[in-house]
């Protein structure tokens, strides 16, 4: 403030003295706090180079006492030209160029009053003023100094003075606008006559003269820049899409139908046509072609594919040329098979890989009597073998005597019925041990506890045995279950089996009886039924169960007797046939599907022993009509007896007796050891005697349709193949098996294979899977051989059944023909004999010799006739054989 006051005073004083208008020239000696430089002052920085160039070096040429330096304008211009933008004078380029005088004043500003070390005076007037009033300012400085001293000594409060004009109103006046003269007003208008005058337009180029248009060209404005950005865009063209829809008129739907019938001629028209000549000619011309075509078809089937028909039998011949029965496994047990032979064997019907084998002593009758005490101690067994364990049998069924024949019950494989040597029928129930058998089937030895698999298989005692007095009196040689399809009543008539469980057994023995046994409790009367039931109940309770025998057949034990006893009286003579084997016809009955609720549950009731007892007995059943009640029986004497098991009532005595057999065929020389039906044909039966076998057809009563020649070795067993209708197996005394293929050869077996050294006792076939068919063969040493049936014997060709059937029919025809021829032949013989007799009385006079000669001649004639006819028949026989092959 204090600095400003003196400045103001100085300036005011300067103004008062100078009385100039606008300039206020601060002296260079004033204090340095001058903020804004006036317009005519331009502070400059001069580099040392410029200072040298212009000779205004600081503190040398130009000092504080002498700060003024006059620079020539031309020099500055030249410097600017040479150094362009770098020149220190470049900011004042314009001012320098327009400077009127030749010299510019450069002032050295020692005190940096205007911010820089030099300043340039831009106007001439200012230059003059600065140079000249330096004198004046010298005086002012003195005054100022004095006044400053005075003020410092006596500061006093400012007194209010009337406003003293210090020249600022001049500035204001200068700045304000005043009209220097009155405004002039002009009115310009067009001449009236020009209004509405016709206008004439003409073209003029816009570029002619710059007055015609105003241009706004673009220019690069440095103060404003547009930053260029890059942007990715894409463009896609699409076609115009238009959505539109239409709707069809929904017409009312209407059901419509048409019916047509073919055009037909009326009877008259047809007649007309038939009568017409045209038709006749047509037929005549056309018939020839037809006959040719028809005959062609008949001669040969042109479309028959020979390749397909050819390779049918030999498909997949690659490598499968083995025809021998391969040994698969053999079972023998050291303890139980020693010195024993297998009398019968059977495959377990449901569990695959399990076979049951009945072991019997190899002793003749006398030996048995001799060793009877020893035999009593050694019980006889049926052994169960499983494929998983060839050394130890799985199960042993104990029986009171040697079992000659046994069978699994078809509806429940846990029940086994066997016929013993003493004529008893024995029943076993192996339900408790089924898991053991099933477990071993998988062959998984690890899962079964080793403790269980001790060397001693569990023994199952028989749970029921028939009474000795009631059963057979000789060893039971064949025992079969009746299928669950039908039952037999007391009279022998078949009735339907509502429970679908086989409960009846048929046995036969050489005591000339075929017996029917029923497993169910005997149905006495309704009154005593409750009593017997109660009795049974009370009896069952205290009776203990020794030997762990299941109580399934407790009701039968020791009291069982057959309900039908069929005897076989001989035809023509007295006496009876002694059956060894029999075969029933396989009768099937269609039952309506019974719901499972009706069937009694099999296992739960077994434990009470009342399961079989509760089955309804045969009184309420409906009789079935189409069941054949006839059976074939093979006897000890080599006969085949065809009889009916139905009992007939003798009107006189009221007793039931069995009818005489209808037919009897004597064929084999010794006992018949097999009577078995073919699994493919219901009425074809194979009987095997000791030296030959025969095939019979049920219904053909003349004889066997196929008979084999006598073999050198005895036949001991026979069995049809399960998969091929023409194949069957015969076991021989020397331990070999013959495979007969009826379609291949009928005079000899197609294959013979030796299995063991002792005679074969039983053969049974079984198919385990479609790829594996096994044949179980037992021999006299007690060894059970399992053989695998090769592919050739297993796979039947497609026409095999048909071919076999045709073969059998042919044989039947042959038989009939033979029979007829025989009858005819006999007739002829009779006629001849009659003629001879007639001829005799006509010539009584002839002498004896002549008579004899005549008789001889006639006899010779007759002989020749006979030979001729025999020859004819022989020849025919030969051709038949040839056609068989």
């Amino acid at each position: 403030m204090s600095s400003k006051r003196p400045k103001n005073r100085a300036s005011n004083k300067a103004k008062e003295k100078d009385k100039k208008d606008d300039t206020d020239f601060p002296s260079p000696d004033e204090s340095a706090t001058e903020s804004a430089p006036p317009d005519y002052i331009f502070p400059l920085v001069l580099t040392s180079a410029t200072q040298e160039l212009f000779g205004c070096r600081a503190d040398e040429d130009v000092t504080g006492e002498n700060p003024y330096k006059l620079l020539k304008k031309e020099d500055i211009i030249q410097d600017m030209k040479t150094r362009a933008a770098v020149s220190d004078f470049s900011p004042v380029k314009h001012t320098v160029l327009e400077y009127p005088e030749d010299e510019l004043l450069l002032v050295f500003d020692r005190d940096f009053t205007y911010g820089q070390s030099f300043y340039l005076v831009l106007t001439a007037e200012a230059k003059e003023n600065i140079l000249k009033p330096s004198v004046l300012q010298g005086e002012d400085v003195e005054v100022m100094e004095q006044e400053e001293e005075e003020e410092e000594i006596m500061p006093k409060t400012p007194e209010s003075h009337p406003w003293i004009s210090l020249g600022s109103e001049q500035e204001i006046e200068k700045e304000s606008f005043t009209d220097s003269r009155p405004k002039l007003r002009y009115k310009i208008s067009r001449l009236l006559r020009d209004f509405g005058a016709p206008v004439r337009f003409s073209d003029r180029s816009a570029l002619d003269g710059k007055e015609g248009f105003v241009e706004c060209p673009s220019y690069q404005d440095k103060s404003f820049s547009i930053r260029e950005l890059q942007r990715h865009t894409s463009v896609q063209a699409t076609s115009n899409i238009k959505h539109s829809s239409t709707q069809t008129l929904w017409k009312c739907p209407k059901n419509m139908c048409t019916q047509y019938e073919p055009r037909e001629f009326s009877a008259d028209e047809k007649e007309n046509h038939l009568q017409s000549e045209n038709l006749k000619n047509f037929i005549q011309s056309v018939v020839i072609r037809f006959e040719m075509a028809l005959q062609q078809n008949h001669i040969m089937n042109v479309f028959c594919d020979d390749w397909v028909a050819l390779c049918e039998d030999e498909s997949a011949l690659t490598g499968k040329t083995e025809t021998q029965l391969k040994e698969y496994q053999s079972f023998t047990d050291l303890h139980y098979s020693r010195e024993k032979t297998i009398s019968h064997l059977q495959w377990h019907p449901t569990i695959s890989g399990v076979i049951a084998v009945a072991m019997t002593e190899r002793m003749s009758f006398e030996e048995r009597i001799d060793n009877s005490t020893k035999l009593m101690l050694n019980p006889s067994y049926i052994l169960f073998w499983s494929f998983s364990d060839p050394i130890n049998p799985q199960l042993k069924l104990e029986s009171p005597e040697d079992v000659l024949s046994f069978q699994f019950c078809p509806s429940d494989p846990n029940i086994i019925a066997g016929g013993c040597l003493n004529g008893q029928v024995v029943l076993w129930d192996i339900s408790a041990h089924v898991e053991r058998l099933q477990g071993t089937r998988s062959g998984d030895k690890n899962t079964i506890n080793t403790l269980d698999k001790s060397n001693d298989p569990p023994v199952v005692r028989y749970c029921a045995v028939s009474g000795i007095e009631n059963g057979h009196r000789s060893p039971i040689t064949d025992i079969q279950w009746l299928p669950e399809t039908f039952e037999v009543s007391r009279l022998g008539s078949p009735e339907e089996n509502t429970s679908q469980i086989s409960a009846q057994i048929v046995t036969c023995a050489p005591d000339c009886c075929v017996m029917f046994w029923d497993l169910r409790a005997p149905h006495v009367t309704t009154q005593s039924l409750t009593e017997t039931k109660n009795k049974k109940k009370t009896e069952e309770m205290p009776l203990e169960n020794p030997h762990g025998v299941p109580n399934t057949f407790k009701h039968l034990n020791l009291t069982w007797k057959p309900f039908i006893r069929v005897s076989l009286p001989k035809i023509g003579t007295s006496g009876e046939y002694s059956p060894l084997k029999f075969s029933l016809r396989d009768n099937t009955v269609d039952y309506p599907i019974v719901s499972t609720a009706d069937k009694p549950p099999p296992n739960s009731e077994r434990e009470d022993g009342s399961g079989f007892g509760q089955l309804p007995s045969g009184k309420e059943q409906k009789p079935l009509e189409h069941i054949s009640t006839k059976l074939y029986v093979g006897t000890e004497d080599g006969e085949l007896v065809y009889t009916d098991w139905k009992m007939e009532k003798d009107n006189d005595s009221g007793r039931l007796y069995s009818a005489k057999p209808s037919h009897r065929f004597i064929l084999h020389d010794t006992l018949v050891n097999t009577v078995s039906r073919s699994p493919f044909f219901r009425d074809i039966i194979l009987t095997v005697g000791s030296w030959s076998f025969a095939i019979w057809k049920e219904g053909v009563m003349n004889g066997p349709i196929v008979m084999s020649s006598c073999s050198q070795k005895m036949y001991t067993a026979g069995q049809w193949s399960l998969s091929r209708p023409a194949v069957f197996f015969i076991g021989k005394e020397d331990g070999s098996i013959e495979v007969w293929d009826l379609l291949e050869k009928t005079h000899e077996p197609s294959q013979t294979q030796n299995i063991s050294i002792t005679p074969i006792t039983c053969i049974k076939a079984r198919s385990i899977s479609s790829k594996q068919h096994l044949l179980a063969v037992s021999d006299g040493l007690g060894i059970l051989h399992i053989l695998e049936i090769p592919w050739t014997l297993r796979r039947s060709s497609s026409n095999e059944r048909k071919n076999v059937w045709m073969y059998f029919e042919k044989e039947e025809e042959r038989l009939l023909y033979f029979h007829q021829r025989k009858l005819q032949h006999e007739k002829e013989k009779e006629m001849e004999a009659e003629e001879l007799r007639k001829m005799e009385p006509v010539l009584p006079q002839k002498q004896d010799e002549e008579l004899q000669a005549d008789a001889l001649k006639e006899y010779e004639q007759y002989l020749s006739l006979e030979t001729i006819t025999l020859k004819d028949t022989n020849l025919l026989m030969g051709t038949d054989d040839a056609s068989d092959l």
Partner: protein
Amino acid sequence: MAKVEETLKRIQSQKGVQGIIIVNAEGIPIKSTLDNSSTVQYAAHIQQLLMKARSMVREVDPQNDLTFLRVRSKKNEIMIAPDKDYFLIVIQNPTE
């Protein structure tokens, strides 16, 4: 008439012949040994087949004409002989 019958019998007696039908050119059966429904069916279908076969033969070679048509199927063989006004159908089972 008798001759027609006789010839038809001759054809019928051949082995395996199942039926004979005489049809006129339009496909209306005149005489048949089969039942009516089969006859009508056979006649209608075979007439169409015959037209097609004949036109095929003639188109391939206009000088040629169809004389006999045999249709062999799985179960039997159908033989057709066409003529100007009639055609005869015989059905035979050759592999008996």
